[in-house]
């Protein structure tokens, strides 16, 4: 299975736009000082992202999937510079973001990326006119000067995402969820970025609207050559939009690979479990092995492989030793069982 033909497409051709290396982020979630002193509680750190590495070639879509709290959004924020990494680094077009100290130096980079958020209701400032919202990056980065120029550009952007230029006069609450998400996209495109981080952009939308947005995003990617980091917990959506998919569990990237490959031939038991859990629209009558249990607390994750308590294949080693990333095809997987080859082959879907 590993020797699937190298997938064609951006991977082979494009240069790497974003490179994430050994990225880690810990939050201090300790009890207040006094509690620690009086009750002898230790300092507590929550490792939201742990040793995550991946590359995104220009013009492709890299998706992160995983259950709630596994660190997807944290990765996204690290990538766009909302958080500083606790370890590792993020390189954008070869520039290490950690090296940049001042806001001023960061500014030219910032306009090269943008972000789209999950909640279409919270991601637009309700007190601003749509035109102002979309124009904010233009104004802030000083991309255009003159009210008329900006207005024209905003009109273009709105039309690009399938709205009317006249909609700029309105306020966000006058739009439906799908339309708002289009406005978000228009804003994201305003600074003509190369790279857009999409944090669950469709999970608050209805399927019919989701389809519109997904189609729009794909169209924009084709037309503008955009690169996406796409975050979702809906595997079907991810499958649909991605070139590469990474699966996260408790802060770690347990497996990443070419999208089709990953779905047709999942390696990691967790990936398999996720795929199994998806309700099957095809109603193939396939017998599935539901995995019990819930995601443990990220504050005290299980030792060794974080997945071991829920994993049917876990053994002693899994419980004690953290698996290292293992190169498999284009992607990587972190699993002792895969490494040892003691994993049964999944029946292919």
């Amino acid at each position, binding site marked *: 299975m590993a020797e699937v033909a190298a997938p064609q497409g951006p991977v082979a051709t494009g240069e790497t736009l974003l490179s994430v290396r050994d990225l880690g982020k810990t939050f201090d979630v300790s*009890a*207040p000082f*006094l*509690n620690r*002193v*009086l*009750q002898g509680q230790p300092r507590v750190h929550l490792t939201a992202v742990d040793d995550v590495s991946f590359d995104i070639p220009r013009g492709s879509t890299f998706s992160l999937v995983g259950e709630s709290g596994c660190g997807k959004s944290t990765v996204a924020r690290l990538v766009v510079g909302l958080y500083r990494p606790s370890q590792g680094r993020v390189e954008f077009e070869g520039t290490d973001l950690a090296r940049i100290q001042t806001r001023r130096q960061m500014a030219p980079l910032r306009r090269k990326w943008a972000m789209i958020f999950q909640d279409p209701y919270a991601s637009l400032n309700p007190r601003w006119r749509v035109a102002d919202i979309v124009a904010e990056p233009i104004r802030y980065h000083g991309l255009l000067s003159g009210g008329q120029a900006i207005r024209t550009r905003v009109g273009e952007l709105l039309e690009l995402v399938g709205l009317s230029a006249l909609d700029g006069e309105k306020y966000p609450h006058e739009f439906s969820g799908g339309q708002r998400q289009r406005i978000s996209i228009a804003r994201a495109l305003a600074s003509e970025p190369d790279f857009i981080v999409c944090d669950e952009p469709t999970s608050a939308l209805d399927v019919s609207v989701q389809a519109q947005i997904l189609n729009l995003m794909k169209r924009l990617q084709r037309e503008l050559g955009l690169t996406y980091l796409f975050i979702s917990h809906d595997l079907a959506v991810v499958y649909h939009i991605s070139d590469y998919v990474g699966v996260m569990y408790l802060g770690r990237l347990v497996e990443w690979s070419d999208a089709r490959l990953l779905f047709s031939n999942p390696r990691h038991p967790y990936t398999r479990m996720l795929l199994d859990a998806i309700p099957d629209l095809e109603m193939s009558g396939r017998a599935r092995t539901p995995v019990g249990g819930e995601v443990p607390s990220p504050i005290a994750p299980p030792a060794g492989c974080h997945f071991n308590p829920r994993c049917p294949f876990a053994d002693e080693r899994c419980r004690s030793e953290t698996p290292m990333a293992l190169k498999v095809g284009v992607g990587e997987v972190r699993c002792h069982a895969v490494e040892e080859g003691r994993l049964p082959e999944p029946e292919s879907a």
Partner: protein
Amino acid sequence: MIAFIVRRLLQSLVVMLVVALLAFSMFRFIGDPVNQMVGVDTTEEVRENLRERLGLNDPVSVQFGRFVVNAAQLDFGISYQHKKEVSNLLAERAPATLELAFLSAIFALIVGVPMGVYTGLHRDSWLSKVFLTVSLVGISLPTFLIGILMIFIFSVWLGWLPSFGRGEVVDLGFWSTGLLTVSGWQAAIMPSITLGLFQMTLIMRLVRAEMLEVLRTDYVKFARARGLPNRAVHFGHALKNTLVPVITITGLQLGSIIAFAIITETVFQWPGMGLMFLQAIQTVDIPIMAAYLILIAFIFVVINLIVDILYYVVDPRLRIDRATAAGH
């Protein structure tokens, strides 16, 4: 829990220190304390001598330290006006004010909470509207006006209730109470209603707002969906959840009650601390002002502590971010 209480205590200590600093600055920097103590014809020599003896020539930090130490021992010096130890003065007056505040708070609670629950449950009934309107009027009439009108009606016109004072007071050693005599209770009726009215309307509106909010929550809906009787839904689930903010606000309001007692005490000639404080303001009797300041802060801190502990008892989630709860 211990850590929580210790933290609260530490914070209280900080609050008290800040207040003490305020009080001390008042004491030290408003006018020359020596001027307040001696007559105009006192010579500079005598003044200097006095200054030295009072320690006013020491470094300010030393003076503050002394002030705090003294205050901690309840020694606030001698009132300029009464020529009497402030702590004794306050101790004499405190029972009156505290009893008044206590009665008002009780009144506010036992009338305000049921009215709030009623108006919350029966949002659109005419009685609710009456309650709400009346409560608005209650908020809009200044306390002193209410007091004056009450005296006018119940003492002068109808002659039912005494218009001033505490009635007969029984001395229990350190505490003198008016709650053991009929005349004491009679005398307390109008002042405590006057004082409690504002808080009552506040509590009523708060309970109502909270009830409306809680009745909208999923767990109330779910409780109904489980077929629980209204009583259980309204009181077991809804009311209990409103208690958390109600306790908080009531606690905070107790502080206000004591402060508003100043007005009520003035109108009804209630012999409490507020009356004395007002007189102290007019005569710039700094020691009394300073001590009252510290006392009020202390009461507030204690109430807060109790509120926090109650909070702890009521809410198993041990959420201690009161700021958000008190926000609405």
